[in-house]
C-alpha cells in the first residue's frame, strides 16, 4: 500500500528524557520509524511505553523534556526546530487528534468558531465567510448531520462521538499530509468506535493522508492499518506489516498481546493476560526490558538489550525468538 519510496516522516534514534525531582526519566530511548505517504501505521503499546510521548515530542509539544535524535518531515528536521516554524507545521501539515473528546473542545466557543480559528491560523487571508463555508463543508465531510446548524452549536450540545468528529474536522481543515491519532476511540462506545475508524479510513483514501494510529487496542489495528510498530519501555520492539505480525509475531510481548485478544471461535476460553506489571521508565532492568515477564527468557536476555533483527517478515527485538527463527529456516 505504500507508493512513493520516500517516507514522509522519518524518525531516527529519537530520545525523550524528562527531568523530574527524582532524577532524569527516559521515556523514549531510541525510536526509528518511517512513515510513508498515504499509509496507515499503528503504534501499539501500553500506557508508559512512550508512544504518545514520541509523537508529542516530534511536534514540539512537550515542555521540560530533553529531546534528542532526529525526526524529519519531508526533509525538514523537527527536533530543535524554531517554535514558530513548528507551529506552522502543526495543524497544517502534521495534525494530531487526541483521546478525550469531552474535554478537547473549548466549552465557551461555538464549533464553527473553533474550526475557523484553526483555519485562519494557517490561512490568514481567509475571510470569515469563507471560513464558515469551509467549516460547514468539513462538518459534512466528517458525517455530522445538519452541519450549518451545528456550526453555531456549543460543544456541550454534541455527543462524544460527534465531538470526536469535530476534532477530526479541525485536524484535516488545512489539508495535512500526516494525521496522528492518539487513542481516538478509547473514550467512545464500541459502535461509535467503528464509525470513527471508518471515517478515518475514508478520509485517508480521499485525501491521501498518512495515518499514525496510536492505540493499545489490537482489535482496532487489524482492520484499519497497513503496518504496525509495537513499543515497549520506550523502544520499538517489533515492526512489520499487519498480517505477518498477527500471524507470526517475533516478539514475546506481541505474542502476549495477541494471546490476550478474546476470540469468538474458542469455547470456554480462559482470559489470558501477560503476567507481571508494565515496566516504568524509572525502573528499567538491565538487558531486555521485557525479561521479567517473558516466558522465553534466557540468561543472555538479562545482559544485553536486544536490537531489531529480522523474524520472518517482521523485525523484532528479541534475541531468543529471532535466533529460533533463524535456526529453523
Amino acid at each position, binding site marked *: 500500500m505504500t507508493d512513493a519510496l520516500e517516507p514522509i516522516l522519518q524518525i531516527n534514534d529519537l530520545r525523550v528524557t*524528562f527531568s523530574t525531582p527524582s532524577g532524569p526519566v527516559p*521515556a523514549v530511548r531510541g525510536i526509528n520509524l518511517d512513515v510513508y505517504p498515504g499509509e496507515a501505521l499503528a503504534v501499539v503499546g*501500553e*500506557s*508508559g511505553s*512512550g508512544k*504518545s*510521548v514520541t509523537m*508529542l515530542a516530534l511536534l514540539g*509539544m*512537550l*515542555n*521540560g*523534556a530533553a529531546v534528542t535524535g532526529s525526526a524529519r518531515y519531508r526533509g525538514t528536521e523537527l527536533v530543535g526546530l524554531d517554535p514558530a516554524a513548528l507551529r506552522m507545521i502543526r495543524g497544517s501539515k502534521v495534525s494530531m487528534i487526541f483521546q478525550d473528546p469531552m474535554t478537547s473542545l473549548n466549552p465557551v466557543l461555538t464549533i464553527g468558531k473553533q474550526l475557523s480559528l484553526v483555519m485562519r491560523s494557517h490561512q490568514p487571508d481567509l475571510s470569515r465567510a469563507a471560513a464558515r463555508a469551509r467549516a460547514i463543508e468539513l462538518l459534512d465531510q466528517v458525517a455530522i448531520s445538519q452541519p450549518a446548524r451545528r456550526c453555531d452549536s456549543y460543544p456541550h450540545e454534541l455527543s462524544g462521538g460527534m465531538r470526536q468528529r469535530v476534532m477530526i474536522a479541525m485536524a484535516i481543515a488545512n489539508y495535512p499530509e500526516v494525521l496522528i491519532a492518539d487513542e481516538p476511540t478509547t473514550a467512545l462506545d464500541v459502535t461509535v468506535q467503528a464509525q470513527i475508524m471508518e471515517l478515518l479510513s475514508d478520509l485517508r483514501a480521499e485525501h491521501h493522508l498518512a495515518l499514525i494510529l496510536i492505540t493499545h487496542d489490537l482489535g482496532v489495528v487489524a482492520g484499519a492499518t497497513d503496518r504496525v510498530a509495537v513499543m515497549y519501555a520506550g523502544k520499538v520492539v517489533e515492526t512489520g506489516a499487519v498480517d505477518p505480525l498477527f500471524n507470526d509475531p517475533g516478539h514475546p510481548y506481541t505474542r502476549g498481546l495477541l494471546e490476550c485478544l478474546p476470540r469468538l471461535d474458542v469455547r470456554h476460553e480462559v482470559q489470558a493476560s501477560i503476567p507481571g*506489571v*508494565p515496566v*516504568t*521508565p524509572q525502573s528499567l532492568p538491565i538487558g531486555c526490558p521485557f525479561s521479567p515477564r517473558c516466558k522465553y527468557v534466557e540468561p543472555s536476555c538479562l545482559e544485553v538489550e536486544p536490537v531489531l533483527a529480522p523474524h520472518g517478515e517482521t523485525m523484532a527485538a528479541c534475541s531468543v525468538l529471532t535466533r529460533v527463527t533463524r535456526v529453523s529456516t
Partner: protein
Amino acid sequence: MTAISLTQPQIEVPVARRRRLRWLHGPAIVGVVVITLWVLVALTLPLWTPFDPLEAVGKRLQGPSASHWMGTDALGRDVFTRALWGARTSLPVAAVVIVSAVVIGTIVGALAGFFGGWLDAALMRTVDITMAFPPILLAMAITAGLGPGIRNAMIAMVLVWWPIYARLLRAQVIAVRQREYVESAWAIGASRWLILRRYILPMSYTPVLVNSTMDFGQVVLLVAQLSFIGLGARPPSPEWGAMITEGATNFYQWWIAAAPGVAILLVVLAFNFVGDALRDSFDVKESTR
C-alpha cells in the same frame, strides 16, 4: 504539558503532617521576621527610642534629621517614636478582634452546620444580612452609635467580622460531618459534643488559620481607617490612623503621614505574605470578603 501517565499501581502513602514548616520560604520568611520584630519592638519599646510619644520633645514640624529620624509633628512630638508606639495599640486590638470574631463565628457556624434545620437557616440569614453591608460603613455606623472610642470600635469590628468565620466553619462542619468516620462514630454512640470536639473542629483549623492570618492585616487597616475618621483611637493616642489624620492636616509635612503609613504597610504586607504562603501550602480557597 501533560506527561504520560504510568500505570504502575501507586500505593497511597499518607503524607506525614510533620512537614509543617514547608510553607516557610521566600516572602513568608520575610513576613514572619517582620511580624516578630514588630511584636518584640512593641513589647520592649522604651529600649528603642529615647522619646516619650506624648510629650513635646523638639521644635514643631521639623523634617527628618539625625536626632528625629522622622521629624516632629505639629505638637513637637517625635514622629518615629509615635509610629513605633502605634503598634502597641494596633496589634493587640487586631488580635483581640480576630480572636473574638473567630470564637463567635466558630460557635455560630458549628451550631448551624451541625444541627441544620431552622437554626441553620436563621443563623445563616443573620450572617447574610450582616455581610450585606460594606464593612467599613457598618463599623462606622455601630461605632458612631455606641460612641467613638477604641473600645467601641473593637466591638463594632467584631460584629462586622464574625460572619466570615461563621460561614467558613459551617462549610467545614458540613463537609466533615458527612465523612464516614464521623458517621461511624455517631453509630457507636458518640455524643454530638464529642464528635464536634474530636473530629470536626480539629479538621477545621486550617482554613481558619489561613483566613485569620490574612484578616489580621485587614483588621489593622480597619482600625486605622476608623481612627482616621475619628471614631477609633482618640488623640493624643499615637495610633497610626489618627496620625495619618494629622498628616492630612499638615499636608506639606509629608513625614507626619509617611511614618504611620509605612508602619501599617509593613505590618499588613507581612501578614499578607505569611497568609499567602500558608494558603498556597494548604491550598485553601479564599473566603469571599
